[in-house]
């Protein structure tokens, strides 16, 4: 049987009846990333219940987030929004003294049209703490897009001029001087000279600190200096963004942030595949190098060496098939990496597809499929979970990457699943962490391999067909 292989990627759009996390979940990782922040989610019990259950044990660690729980009086405007928010923010200031309060607008604040963007600057002036507003609601966004709305709002808060005056500069450098303690002045100068002369580059996307270090070092090997990250460890350390600076994204769900950086901060976006998997990392570095006119050094060997280290995992999945139900927007990058590992991708479900921001990633996916002789996958935007499950029954993929709502029921029907949310919390970026991605992807296969002789594949009784 010869099936005509499609020449290009196909894009479809379904009903949008799919399971994903509410975008307010971004507070869970962002409050940990931005150490001096406080996230106030202005919503209802529903929002609170989701956060409480989704964040599990984190909730008990006195997190720097809270709900401003709206009551009936707030909905019917018997209470004054400004006074209520002022009261709560003063309480937060007193108890936690954060450097920034991030207001997360929710579906409810959208529907009752609470003017958070209007209230914030006024209240900010009154209480003396910056208030950043991010409308990360389930009406407009899915899961990781929450981070996108927060970072887009933060981007407007980045200082727009690097400090120039020498004395001031010295003073500002006091801390880095302390950190350089013990190094001679020449060494500091020498460190500077390790870099090629290129326009300032700022990276955007929230990553755990170790991954930030890894990617920064990776670029340093090419002589590229990372002038700053959005977000930084502290709100007070947000990077300078001058007109003409270069920016590059590290995650596929940051299209609003990219747009804000280009349009409002007049930065130049380097459109590259994302540094997920050794192939992605290499392409990411190469693209940045090419923009700065640098010839990358030693990337061939580096990538080859990483692949060599991955072989024991790759041989478990080579020739197997995978189905992405789609819920966190990492799907295209992960699919591209898995195709490179020798897998076949049936379907890439994705909540939202920004073909411009992800252009380089999509091109790399297409190229990878051609090079690997793999069929081009179908990309399904706003998928319909019910239809997807029917397709899964038909296709019988070796692995389904899906949310927790479907994982156990699919396992009970003998279908291997990997819980997709883990990809957003695990360290998956750069050469160093490629192993971690495969550790996750192969875990169900390794586990089920251990059980394969027990005959316990299908653990539900045949459902009666009507």
């Amino acid at each position: 049987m010869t099936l005509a292989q499609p020449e290009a990627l196909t894009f479809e759009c379904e009903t949008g009846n799919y399971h994903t996390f509410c975008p307010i979940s971004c507070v869970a990782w962002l409050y940990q990333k931005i150490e001096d922040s406080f996230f106030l989610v202005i919503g209802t019990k529903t929002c609170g219940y989701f956060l409480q259950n989704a964040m599990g044990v984190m909730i008990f660690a006195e997190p720097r987030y809270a709900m401003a729980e709206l009551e009936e009086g707030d909905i019917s405007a018997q209470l004054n929004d400004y006074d209520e928010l002022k009261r709560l923010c003063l309480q937060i200031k007193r108890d936690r003294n954060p450097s920034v309060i991030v207001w997360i607008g929710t579906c409810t604040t959208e529907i009752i049209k609470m003017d958070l963007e209007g209230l914030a600057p006024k209240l900010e002036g009154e209480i003396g703490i910056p208030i950043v507003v991010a409308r990360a609601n389930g009406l407009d966004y899915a899961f990781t897009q929450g981070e996108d709305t927060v970072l887009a709002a933060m981007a407007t808060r980045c200082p727009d001029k690097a400090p120039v005056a020498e004395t001031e500069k010295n003073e500002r450098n006091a801390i880095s001087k302390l950190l350089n303690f013990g190094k001679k002045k020449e060494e500091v100068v020498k460190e500077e000279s390790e870099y090629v002369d290129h326009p300032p580059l700022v990276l955007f996307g929230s990553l755990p600190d170790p991954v930030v270090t890894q990617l920064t070092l990776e670029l340093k090997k090419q002589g590229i200096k990372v002038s700053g990250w959005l977000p930084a460890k502290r709100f007070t350390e947000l990077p300078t963004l001058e007109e003409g600076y270069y920016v590059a994204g590290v995650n596929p769900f940051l299209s609003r942030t990219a747009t804000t950086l280009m349009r409002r901060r007049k930065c130049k976006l380097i459109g590259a595949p994302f540094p997920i998997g050794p192939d992605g990392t290499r392409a990411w570095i190469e693209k940045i190098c090419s923009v700065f006119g640098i010839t990358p050094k030693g990337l061939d060997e580096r990538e080859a060496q990483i692949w060599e280290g991955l072989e024991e995992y790759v041989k478990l999945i080579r020739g197997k098939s995978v189905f992405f139900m789609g819920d966190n927007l990492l799907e295209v990058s992960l699919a591209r990496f898995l195709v490179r590992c020798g897998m076949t991708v049936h379907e890439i479900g994705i909540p939202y597809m920004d073909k411009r921001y992800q252009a380089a990633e999509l091109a790399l996916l297409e190229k990878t499929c051609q090079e690997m002789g793999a069929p081009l996958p179908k990309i399904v935007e706003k998928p319909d979970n019910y239809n997807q499950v029917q397709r899964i029954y038909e296709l019988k993929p070796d692995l389904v990457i899906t949310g927790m709502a479907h994982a156990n029921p699919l396992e009970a029907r003998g279908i291997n699943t990997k819980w997709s949310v883990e990809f957003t919390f695990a360290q998956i970026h750069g050469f160093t962490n490629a192993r971690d991605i495969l550790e996750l992807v192969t875990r169900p296969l390794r586990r089920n391999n251990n059980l394969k002789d027990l005959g316990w594949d299908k653990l539900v009784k045949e459902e009666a067909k009507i």
Partner: protein
Amino acid sequence: MKLAYWMYAGPAHIGTLRVASSFKNVHAIMHAPLGDDYFNVMRSMLERERNFTPVTTSVVDRNVLARGSQEKVVDNITRKDAEERPDLIVLTPTCTSSILQEDLHNFVERAQLEAKGDVMLADVNHYRFNELQAADRTLQQIVQYYIEKARKKGELPEGKTEKPSVNIIGSSTLGFHNQHDCTELKRLMADLGIEVNTVIPEGASVHQLKNMPRAWFNLVPYRELGLMAARYLEEQFGTPYVDITPMGVVETARCIRKIQQVINGQGADADYEEYINEQTLYVSQAAWFSRSIDCQNLTGKKAVVFGDNTHAAAMTKILAREMGIHVVWAGTYCKYDADWFREQVSEYCDEVLITEDHGAIGDAIARVEPSAIFGTQMERHVGKRLDIPCGVIAAPIHIQNFPIGYKPFMGYEGTNQIADLVYNSFTLGMEDHLLEIFGGHDTKEVITKGISADSDLAWAKDAQAELNKIPGFVRGKVKRNTEKFARERNVSIITVEVMYAAKESVGA
């Protein structure tokens, strides 16, 4: 507005969904934005449910906001009706749809014209009721719907069953140890020679509901879920109900005596005194436990209790009345039903605490310094912080509170389980205390030195800083692997680069 980090009872729609998805072949459609279907995750994870949770969303997005749902909700209902042929579809409003004030009644009526199954709207105000109240209302609503439907069709069965029989009302999905309780109650009824007419909502089909009037009485083991349905049946058919929670030896006996009275009132000739006596003295271990030396040691020990009405009240009585433990305060988060709680526990504790504020509970625990806490997962964490053991007795709960093994809280086996829970909580606390007095198991410092003493490698400052960023529980492993890697390659100073090279190398 209220500043809140934690809530004990969930939002109203969770209650509705718990009831709807407990029934067999009932589907719930939430009128909600994307991401509000977190209920499916909880059910799939906590209950380790093998089947797909029968809950879908009719998504409220920007278009709905601008133009209203129009055909969307109706289409979603008829589509689900065609796909899965459920007996009943429950349209479930959420906080979002409450504010939109769309005419969901109208959608239901329109969908009903096309759907083969039944369609109803869960009639719950999101801003006035919590999860528990909503569950109670929804269950009553569904029962009433099917009773009235059967009455209209003339299908309502006449008269009672031949032998004494019972409806057990209130066992539901995501309820605390509900499945085990339900099994235990069925056993108890079998022991008492009472037929179980129906169990609702867990595992029931809506077609069984019309048979409910045939039962001689209704048993409502949980204060929070089932009372409204039981009262409805009493009002319609004069069916009496027993709402004494059979938790603990004394209360189980009281519940059984009440059942005896109720069925004898309808012409049965039951005498359960012998059974109660046999179970209490020789079968269940709890009465003997309270008499044993172990329990003597617990006399006068201080405990605090917090949870939902059912469990907190029952635990307070067990601790004080059956084990001689001093309950300093007992509390509930069921504010809407606070009077009942006060009346139940006031003679068994020094103080009654009614609050939904976990901070107030934490403070009250710290103030009292009890030897053990019996509460929810939140109190367990307070206990961890204060070094006080805690037995979990009520929702909110985590996955470890959905044990696979048989662990009822009700009936005679329940008394055994509770005795274990109480005893283990206290001995662990005592053990800890003794260890502290006698200097602990080992001195911690020596252990740490033993492992790291032979480190001949120097860590560069930045690498040390990087190492400190790694979460504590894997830091030791990362450190050892990196040092092994460095030693094999004769690297004497570990820099950040060396650290990550080690991570990248095979097997590190």
